[in-house]
């Protein structure tokens, strides 16, 4: 038997694809068995997924037609996509959040180009977000006013994440620096805050913001629920940010600080000009992962009944005419989240690759499996 295989091996033509397959798919008996069994499994899954997704799917028509076909009901998504993405924003004014999303996408695309990296890109992001808030609100630009209770769906998710990112980053820096300092009061406060926040689930903090916080305010004094949730998210991811940045601060060699001091820089100058720029650069990849985590975490807002993307998805399911198409709606929303998170992680990878690294240590080593 083994002789037969060996002879077969020699008889195979020396095409590139064949040598590649021999090296990467069939390099041992174990791997050959694995390749064939996993390959069959993948083919099996793929074929049923493709037939559900495309071949048996209904792209046009009503719920009755969908139920008869047995495949996915994309007609439902076409019907509901405007609501899922934009929520209750007035139909005639939907161009505003659409413009906001379009701007975010183009700025994000620009962020992938190395030649754009710099202060100008940073300020474009800030400007665009500020402008978008004014645009969605409408009052200051002389447009029809749309209340925050009508904001919803993807624009709200994006807005909360971006504001969360923008505020939690400096907040995290302050916390991390305070934790590293030798001022005992600041250090204790920051350690307490960080460990307290990181020790409890986000959802309990969101409950605190929505249920508990009003108790702590003077009578008759209310703060918008959306704003409270935003603050909760900032505090939460600020604590995680702080730990990431602390890692960067610890990675800066002592010699750097001593060198800065010896040329006469003050403490704050040393921090501002020498330590922080290097520390923040080192931790760009874990910073982006924290941001991705926060973006995903905004989906928890649905639990305290705010109209984020997850909320609009869930409430689109309660249409009595279109019952039973939850899978399609969740897959649609999952794709939106996936595209956002995946592209963010690609951006982080690109930044990581552009930084000097200590070489890819054990990459490409084969352990025989």
């Amino acid at each position, binding site marked *: 038997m083994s002789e037969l295989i060996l002879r077969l091996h020699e008889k195979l033509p020396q095409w590139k694809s064949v040598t590649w397959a021999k090296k990467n*798919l069939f390099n041992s008996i174990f791997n050959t068995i694995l390749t064939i069994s996993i390959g069959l499994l993948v083919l099996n899954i793929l074929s049923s997924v493709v037939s559900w997704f495309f071949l048996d799917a209904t792209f046009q028509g009503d719920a009755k037609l969908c139920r008869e076909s047995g495949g996915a009901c994309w007609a439902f998504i076409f019907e509901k996509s405007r609501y899922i993405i934009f929520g209750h924003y007035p139909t005639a004014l939907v161009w505003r959040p659409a413009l906001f999303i379009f701007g975010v996408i183009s700025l994000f695309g620009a962020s992938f180009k190395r030649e754009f990296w710099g202060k100008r890109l940073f300020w474009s992001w800030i400007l665009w977000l500020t402008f978008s808030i004014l645009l969605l609100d409408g009052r200051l630009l002389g447009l029809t006013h749309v209340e925050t209770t009508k904001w919803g769906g993807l624009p709200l998710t994006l807005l909360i994440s971006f504001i969360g990112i923008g505020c939690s980053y400096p907040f995290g820096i302050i916390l991390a620096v305070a934790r590293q300092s030798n001022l005992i*009061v*600041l250090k204790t406060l920051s350690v307490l805050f960080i460990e307290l926040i990181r*020790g409890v*689930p986000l959802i309990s903090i969101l*409950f605190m913001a929505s249920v508990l916080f009003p108790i702590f*305010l003077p009578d008759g004094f209310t703060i918008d629920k959306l704003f409270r949730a935003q603050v909760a998210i900032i505090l939460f991811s600020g604590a995680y940010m702080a730990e990431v940045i602390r890692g960067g601060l610890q990675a800066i060699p002592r010699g750097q600080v001593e060198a800065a001091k010896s040329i006469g820089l003050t403490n704050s100058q040393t921090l501002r000009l020498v330590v922080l720029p290097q520390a923040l650069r080192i931790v760009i990849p874990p910073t982006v992962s924290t941001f991705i985590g926060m973006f995903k975490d905004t989906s928890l807002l*649905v639990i305290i009944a705010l109209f984020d993307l997850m909320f609009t998805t869930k409430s689109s399911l309660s249409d009595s005419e279109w019952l039973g198409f*939850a899978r399609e709606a969740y897959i649609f929303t999952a794709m939106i989240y996936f595209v956002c998170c995946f592209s963010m992680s690609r951006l982080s990878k690109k930044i990581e690759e552009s930084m000097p690294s200590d070489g890819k240590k054990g990459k490409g080593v084969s352990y025989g*499996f």
Partner: protein
Amino acid sequence: MPQIFYSLAFRRHLLQFSVLGIVAALFWFLISNAITNLSEQRIASGFDFLFTEAAFDIGESFIEYSSTSSFLKAFQVGLLNTLLVALIGNIFAVFLGTFIGMARVSSNWLIKKVSDVYIETFRNIPLLLQLFFWYVLISEFLPSVREAEPYLGSVFLTQRGLYFPFPQNILEPTAIALFALISLVMIYRKWRKSNRFDFKPLLLPVVLGAFVLIFGRPLEFTSPMLAGFNFEGGASITPELGALLLGLVLYTAAFIAEIVRSGIESIDRGQVEAGMSLGLKPPLVFQFIVLPQAMRVVVPPLTSQLLNLTKNSSLAVAIGYPDLLNVSNTALNQTGQAVECILIVMLIYLSFSLLTSLVMNIYNKKTAIPGEAR
């Protein structure tokens, strides 16, 4: 400007005192508001409510619980449910994650690609969305109890959950098996240290075996049987618990896989080559050289993932599994004592994470490279 403002020590103290003052003032403001608000709304404060009747039902529970039980008991049920999810979830997540992480560094292209797709898919979709998806899939798209076909004889996968055969006298045999396992491990360790067989530690298992033979009873399996509208006998996993476990395990495993991968790749090529040149085969190099060193890199982020799974199990509240947070929410709505309920939940989660970091610190000290102070 008085001279004193130029003194660094003075400015440092001024900064610290002013921050402390602001924080203290803020707390005083919030707490005094809370006290006046609570007394105006006539909401009782303190933890006396824990001993009053809870008056709500809880879907699933290990310990005896009914709506006439106290709030304290309800919190216990919630805590036990959270611990159950954390325990089972973490075990499966570590196994699946390690498996996928190893597949990720496999030399087999197909396996590598499949695990890559898995990691990217599950990592980049919010856990909550995955939970909703699994819950809908289980509770709406599985066959109903009457139509369910058995797998492997008597396992039923239905809209109302997974039903499978289960021993009714589980506690006693498990305790005995655990005891036997621990003594076996002890023997093995002793044997490895001395390199020759020592008969003394064998005494314990022999005595134990005799004990089991005399007093123990074999496992009494019962299988689920359709009786009226539901199954009877065996054991079951409800759709809520099933969806929660499935979601948590698949999501966390993707993160653990990345940790395992980076741990394996952190080992220097030279180590592998040195092992090979000693004549070790690749799998042995992996087992004896790469894995022990990779563990040092893997364990700290791994524990934080385990903790994440435990904290994320609080998302149970969204699909209706009665975990700690869910029970606390119901209690909050029942009594209006928001401060106390949220405080209990936060303290319990906080003690989980403090306990974990304590264990972690001990582990780090034990496994740190000698001479390299952390």
